[in-house]
């Protein structure tokens, strides 16, 4: 579409305003900087609260803030919906394109890859660890049904999978991994408060190192708040955030295991 109208748009000064060094949110016009946000302040719903909310969003870098809704949630709590224009921008020319992103293979391709390169089934052990009771994350990746039309790892003929469920203590998880001779560990952390997931994930790495098996396995964490960067920082081989499907995870670990094997043999 853009090609055909590019000339006309340029004439109208549209694309001239597009600057990759100065990327801002788009509401309905390029560079309008429009954002919407909602939050609650722990104060009563008075005009003082209104001014407090406006001052806060101005500190966030929003100009022309507009409170479109506010209501009391409790005697001393007020909820706000606010629109404004953010003054900040990002320079995307300084952000390298992520070339490390793998194109996921299909289930059949993954099975074929394992048959060809490993001869045996790979052993995958997964759990939601610590106090977290949510299984949707680990189930999305492991259960037969999977997520959004993507079958989970249990469906893969060349994988031997063990989903240990939720609230699995790290000690228990490590013991099972040793018993089952796991190739890959999948750790899910769905809901977290006060960064407890970070402590829990760090503790697992320490236990695996103490048992001397950290380097033998591919260690992967996943969850709503997990990023690739956080995972590396905590000593994991990889981390997967929201909207990950089984193929993404499996493509990663078969390639990682294959790379390690080839390095060992050479």
């Amino acid at each position, binding site marked *: *579409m853009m090609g055909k*109208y590019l000339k*006309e748009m340029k004439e109208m000064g549209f694309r001239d305003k597009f600057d990759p060094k100065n990327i801002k949110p788009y509401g309905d*016009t390029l560079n309008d900087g429009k954002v919407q946000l909602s939050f609650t302040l722990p104060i009563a719903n008075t005009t003082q609260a209104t001014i407090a909310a406006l001052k806060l969003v101005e500190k966030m870098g929003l100009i022309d803030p507009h*409170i*479109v*809704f506010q209501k009391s949630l409790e005697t001393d709590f007020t909820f706000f919906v606010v629109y404004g224009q953010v003054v900040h921008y990002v320079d995307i020319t300084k952000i390298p394109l992520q070339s490390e992103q793998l194109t996921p293979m299909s289930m059949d391709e993954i099975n074929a890859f394992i048959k060809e390169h490993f001869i045996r089934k790979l052993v995958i052990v997964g759990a939601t660890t610590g106090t977290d009771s949510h299984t949707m994350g680990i189930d999305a990746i492991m259960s037969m049904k999977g997520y959004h039309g993507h079958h989970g790892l249990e469906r893969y003929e060349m994988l031997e999978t063990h989903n240990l469920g939720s609230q699995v203590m790290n000690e228990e998880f490590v013991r099972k991994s040793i018993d089952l001779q796991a190739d890959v560990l999948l750790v899910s952390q769905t809901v977290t408060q006060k960064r407890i997931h970070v402590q829990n994930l760090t503790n697992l790495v320490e236990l695996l190192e103490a048992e001397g098996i950290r380097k033998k396995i591919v260690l992967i964490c996943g969850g709503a708040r997990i990023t690739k960067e956080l995972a590396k920082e905590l000593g994991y081989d990889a981390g997967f955030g929201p909207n990950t499907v089984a193929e993404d995870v499996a493509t990663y670990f078969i390639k990682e295991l294959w790379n390690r094997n080839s390095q060992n043999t050479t």
Partner: protein
Amino acid sequence: MMKGWNKLNLDHALVERARAKARKIASDMQNFIEKYTTTAIERTICRLFGIDGVNEEGIPLPNIIVDNIDVGVGAAVYLGNAIVTTGLNPQQIAEKVAKKELDLKTVPLSDVDVIKSAILPLVKESAEKIRRNRAERNKLLEKYGEKDGPLLYVIVATGNIYEDIIQASSAARKGADIIAVIRSTGQSLMDYVPYGATTQGFGGTYATQENFRLMRQTLDEVGEELGRYIRLCNYCSGLCMPEIAAMGAFERLDVMLNDALYGILFRDINMQRTIIDQHFSRMINGYSGIIINTGEDNYVKTVDAVEQAHTVITSQLMNEQFALLAGIPEGQMGIGHAFEIDPSIKNGFLYEIAQAQLSREIFPNSPLKYMPPTRYITGDIFMGCVQNALFNIVTRMTDQKICLLGMLTEAIHTPFISDRAIAIEIAQYIFNNMDSIAEEFEFKPHGIIHQRAILVLERADSLLGEIEKQGLFKTLELGIFAGIKRPINGGKGLDGVYKKTPEYFNPFMEIFMLKEVL
């Protein structure tokens, strides 16, 4: 296309009695309409003759012509006469008039039969152009197939046609079926149509023929890529009803808002002026194969939607008759209504179902246009999503055809590109998940929905009786609709109304009503 629903067990004799009253009201009004023409109608005739463009001061040439003639005699007589005398075509004549090189009033008058035969080929050419557009739409609809279930209608309103194009493409790719370009604030009160591509509007983008063309081209390109026909919608209502209808005909718009009552009540346009304009405007829409949308949804934005529900049905029945008199078939009548009941009312959802189903059963062959909640939408955008979801559910339950999707930021600002995407995804989820709900569910006999529908119908019938006695103009003076009173000689545009002289003729009206090329 439409299914004949009979879930309310309506008294069909009562429906037909109400309809007969509406027919009488409309035909009384038609006697008035036929005696008059307006500056807007004569400008439209200029446009249909191919006159376009502006002078150095930016005044549209059709306005310049109409300022140069006796409006009651009609532009066709003057233009035809000038063609006979000068041998020039209408555009060349208009340019000469604009440069003051020609005064249409001083050209010696030829014989009327000579004038008529001189313009006949031009009239045919113009009608043929419109028919070609109609054929093209039908061809594309046949190629891609018509959609089952509701058509997803979303608005774009950036003020800049090029920005609108980006937003419309995004919406179409997300699944929108109809793109409506909202007009700039105040355009309905302008007694001329702006010219060219425009980039500066307020709360919307000016309706110009070039803007229509640009958006049509975009939607055709995106539609081809998606394998779907994406309909384009704009607005006739206002002081330029027939002119904008003609532009829509030339640029293959598919849906147009067309409602004189809306202009009278909500834009304070003079009732005589706009009801006369509406007739020719609808004729053009009818001939172009364009679906009209009527504006009854607006009635219940200002008054209580439960108390005044019958005024919606009353107006719908009158609008149907006005449309029939202008040659619009039922399949092109997007009769309007809305989901506007106060959400705090107990069983309000059931009343909404009753009202929507009542419209469905009274107008079984109309692609009803159903409007989302606006009056009780607050800045609580999260609650707004749920209100829109309930609206979508009623849409599917009562088989509405044109579904104007509610937006997250209704009443806050014109929609963000993301608001539209959210609205479309929610609607698609509901329409797919509830695809056959209308067929599966029946209403409890004598239950809340049945009783409500019967009550509203009876009240509408009784109001139609009153209007039939007093006449439509008197009813509008009394403030029966939307609680708004309008005097017969008040509002904008009355100075553009002229009684037709004996020489007057409008060659396009004859062709459009005949529905064929001469």
